[in-house]
């Protein structure tokens, strides 16, 4: 059995999200984790003559959760998302997730996403900076490709 030589770590992942002017903005410096969960919607049924359940893939989805630092710079994740929520234009924006970094050959997940919700919990007794958790949901197709540039 071959031992893997291509494992990765996530310290240099890059996440870009469109700002209000549809310009992809690198928000990695204010993010510390991202969770993407490709999900199949599965139809299930039984028929006469067999005991076994049958299944077919019906649809695809890929909700994304990102955890970041709540900061005051307009080009960083917290203000970008707050301005998205309160800015009066709820249309989908392009999200890019580069794993493990943005070098040529890295994997890129991208698609149009809507803002589901986000939460911020300022806490006077926390010896920590304020954090933000954001849930995004794709609108239409999410693609996976290899970064070429």
């Amino acid at each position, binding site marked *: 059995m071959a031992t893997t030589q291509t494992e990765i770590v996530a310290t240099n992942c890059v996440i870009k999200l469109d700002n209000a002017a549809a310009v992809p903005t690198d928000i*990695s410096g204010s993010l510390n984790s991202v969770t993407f969960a490709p999900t199949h919607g599965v139809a299930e049924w039984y028929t006469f003559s067999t005991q076994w359940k049958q299944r077919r893939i019906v649809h695809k989805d890929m909700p994304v959760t990102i955890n970041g630092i709540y900061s005051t710079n307009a080009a960083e994740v917290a203000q970008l998302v707050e301005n998205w929520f309160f800015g009066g234009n709820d249309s989908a924006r392009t999200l890019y997730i580069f794993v493990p970094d943005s070098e040529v050959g890295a994997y890129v997940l991208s698609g149009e996403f809507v803002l589901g919700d986000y939460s911020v919990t300022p806490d006077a007794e926390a010896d920590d900076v304020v954090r933000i958790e954001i849930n995004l949901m794709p609108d239409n197709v999410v693609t996976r490709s290899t970064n070429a540039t």
Partner: protein
Amino acid sequence: MTTHSTVQLDALVTVIEGKLDDISGSVVGMKEGIADHRTIMVYGSEFEGAQNSRTDRNTFGGGLRLRRYVVSVDVYSRPSSQLDEDITAAQQDSYSVIAILEAQSTSPAFGLSGVHTFHWTGKLGVFPYAGAEYWGSKFALEFLCH
């Protein structure tokens, strides 16, 4: 927009020394020995490069590294001799230090930009030094810094 400068540990120690200098009759700073009483030593004693992280960074690409510093404040009030007077002196000195720490109610603590949070603990006791025992108090000042 709020911006934060990077806090250097030596600057933090210096500014704390400056505040503790307000306690009258104190000798503050790193000295060769305990020649005078009360003597207060201030020094950085614990360091963490990225608070609550198991890597060297708090965001992707190392954009943010939250530093955790612990600054120790050791107060040597007087050598053990008369118990009631020893405890009284140590207690009075600890009150003086606590008053200065509690005065840091506005952000940033100690007026140093980049200090995010500040938490302290302290205890009274007998502390050995160079073969002698001193009554005094020891404080640990914990900082979260940019």
